[in-house]
């Protein structure tokens, strides 16, 4: 029936968009596979594959291991600034990777305070480049994500279970065995797989902190093959390999991220007394160390960047304008696609759900290589740099936005779908009066996320851009490459302010529209 399946035009639009997303991801993968020079990996490619897997595994493992005590401390302690700290945990996800790297260089670099302390204690200094540095940066970027995922697991244990355990006189070790360990068994595989996947496609970290034959990821090797060696066959082979790897891990991740292992609680806000004594001190130390680890690099880039603001190269402002245009464009595009697909899936076009998640299995450089091969040699790549970046960023943000919107869209349809139909609300009027206001909050938050991700993206743009079309992250990377660290930190401050302002503006739109 028309009313159940949605209007025909909406169905057709959703189908077309789904096919476009599939063409962009699968088409790129197919194109790279078709262009692969031959199917034998050279020694450098093997090394890149091994390094990619090693750094991703280490990053996921270290992030999750550190996140367990932190999440537990946050779950069971109440202190001033707790809510702020948890909110701060969202920041590294929005933080442009180049900015994070600059911050880590400021703290852990050769002249940074950590090495100064080590040397004064008579210890050898740490090097932030190579495997150490790549893992350090990935832990910095993903520890908050792991902590939030595990914290959600902790909070999903109904407080009634803890009350029962305490009433039965279970000591903390027994509570851990019966309540917390089963939760961790449910949550950790998903967290590990998610971070492993994110680190597999890491490009900007490897570009700035890795490099050289011993510390190059597949993503970085694609870039070098395409940009410096102009070896299209090798770039295509690496991209096809990367796609296969990511697709396999994505499938595993979707399987591993399951729902809660506990039945529902009654949602009673019970006060569960946290264990006292030495456990309290451990929790305090964990929270202080984690806060220092997360805030230190942010403060570091700020202190370095403030004087750098005086020596910003003139190219910063046009680059900022290009970045803003690309970010806003890709956020709007991603939101429109995600909303259309979520509405269609909620109305029963279930196959589109898989389509919306497809970009997870293709990295930015895989799609970029595919598009490069598609236009080469008829069009100069740099003339397409900004549109391609906009489209690829929108595609990369789509899975997150879609995941955010789908449950809310389903609820909207379940709660008000029939009411809207019975009142004859359809088309643009329904979008304006019902759908947008009811979904404004996740739409605002999600498009803010997409805008910030796009703003800070240093990936596909590096494949296509020339100096005339460079975005702000690319400019910062170029300044770093020229060892103009102060100017780079200054430009990073501009970038991070613009990213957060953009996120704030979108999110603000959402919360103000969703006043009811």
């Amino acid at each position, binding site marked *: 029936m028309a009313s159940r399946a949605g209007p025909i035009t909406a169905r057709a639009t959703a189908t077309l968009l789904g096919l476009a997303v599939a063409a962009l991801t699968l088409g790129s993968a197919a194109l790279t596979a078709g262009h692969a020079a031959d199917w034998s990996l050279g020694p450098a490619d093997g090394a890149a594959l091994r390094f990619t897997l090693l750094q991703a595994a280490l990053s996921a493992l270290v992030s999750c291991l550190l996140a367990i005590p932190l999440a537990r401390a946050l779950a069971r302690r109440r202190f001033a600034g707790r809510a702020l700290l948890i909110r701060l945990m969202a920041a590294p996800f929005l933080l442009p990777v180049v900015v994070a790297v600059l911050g880590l260089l400021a703290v852990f670099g050769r002249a940074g305070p950590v090495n100064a302390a080590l040397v004064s204690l008579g210890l050898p200094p740490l090097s932030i480049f190579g495997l150490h540095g790549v893992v350090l940066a990935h832990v910095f970027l993903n520890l908050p994500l792991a902590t939030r995922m595990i914290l959600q697991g902790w909070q999903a244990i109904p407080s009634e279970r803890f009350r029962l355990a305490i009433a039965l006189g279970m000591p903390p070790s027994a509570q851990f065995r019966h309540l917390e360990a089963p939760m961790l068994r449910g949550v950790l595989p998903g967290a590990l797989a998610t971070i492993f996947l994110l680190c597999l496609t890491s490009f900007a970290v490897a570009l700035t902190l890795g490099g050289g034959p011993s510390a190059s990821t597949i993503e970085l090797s694609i870039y070098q093959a395409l940009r410096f060696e102009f070896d299209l066959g090798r770039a295509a082979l690496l991209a096809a390999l990367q796609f296969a790897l990511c697709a396999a891990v994505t499938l595993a991740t979707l399987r591993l991220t399951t729902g809660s292992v506990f039945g529902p609680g009654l949602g009673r806000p019970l006060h569960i007394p946290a264990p006292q004594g030495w456990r309290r001190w451990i929790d305090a130390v964990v929270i202080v160390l984690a806060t220092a680890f997360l805030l230190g690099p942010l403060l570091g880039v700020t202190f370095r960047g403030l004087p750098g603001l005086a020596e910003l190269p003139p190219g910063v402002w046009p680059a900022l304008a290009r970045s803003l245009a690309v970010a806003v464009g890709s956020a709007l595009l991603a939101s429109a696609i995600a909303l259309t697909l979520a509405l269609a899936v909620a109305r029963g076009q279930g196959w589109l759900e898989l389509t919306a998640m497809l970009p997870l299995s293709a990295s930015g450089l895989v799609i970029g290589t595919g598009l490069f091969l598609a236009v080469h040699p008829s069009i100069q790549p740099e003339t397409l740099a900004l549109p391609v970046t906009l489209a690829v960023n929108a595609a990369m943000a789509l899975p997150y936005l879609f995941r955010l919107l789908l449950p809310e869209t389903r609820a909207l349809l379940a709660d*008000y779908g029939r009411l809207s139909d019975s009142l004859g609300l359809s088309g643009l009027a329904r979008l304006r009066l019902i759908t947008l206001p009811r979904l404004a909050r996740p739409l605002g938050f999600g498009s803010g996320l997409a805008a910030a991700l796009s703003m800070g993206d240093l990936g596909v743009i590096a494949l296509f851009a020339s100096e005339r079309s460079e975005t702000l992250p690319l400019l910062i990377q170029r300044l770093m490459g020229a060892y103009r660290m102060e100017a780079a930190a200054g430009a990073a401050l501009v970038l991070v302010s613009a990213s957060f302002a953009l996120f704030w503006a979108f999110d603000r739109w959402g919360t103000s529209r969703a006043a009811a």
Partner: protein
Amino acid sequence: MLRLEYLDIRQEGFHLTANWQVAKGAKVAVIGPSGAGKSTLLMALAGFVAHTGRITWEGEDLAALSPGERPLSILFQDQNLFPHLSLAQNLGLGISPRLHLTAGDHALIETTLARVGLGGMGSRKPAQLSGGQLGRAALARALLRARPILLLDEPFAALGPALKAEMLDLVTETADETEATVLMVTHDPADARRFAELTVLVADGVAAAPVPTAALFANPPSALRDYLGA
């Protein structure tokens, strides 16, 4: 006249048939055990449930009409108002689904609100209203839509007995005024007696033809006796 011709609804593990008609302006209670299909019958009339057979109003087949185009208004069990819109806007949707309202429309909304005892509350959001007031607002919108059929899917089930009786009287009053044909789902025989001259019994896969309410309860068939526990 509302006709159900060999209406047949099949869902997984569920089957309901109906083959009868009610005259224009009739007030009909729909009663029966839970799960028998009272709500499903109303949803089929409103255009939300696939079926075979025909539903016609004054000779016109409703199959081609989308839910919003059908000559009926429906009050659901809950969620009858959009929480992000004011009462006046919620009522305004009954006049124009695009909310293109004239000054005359706004005046009409205000008088209708006053008629159901909600005068001056047009700018409030649904969250600021009590359960009884929410029911009144939904009825007020049905008044504005003035469709010839009114379907009530137990919209007042959550209200106390006194408030529910008050709402039923309001339904009677508005239905008499608009000469609407009313089908009301209920699980309470007292509601049926109070409100409806005719009652449809839904049990054992059949929505039986409407019969006079008083006679039905005076001499209940076995399915109704089981349900009433008498």
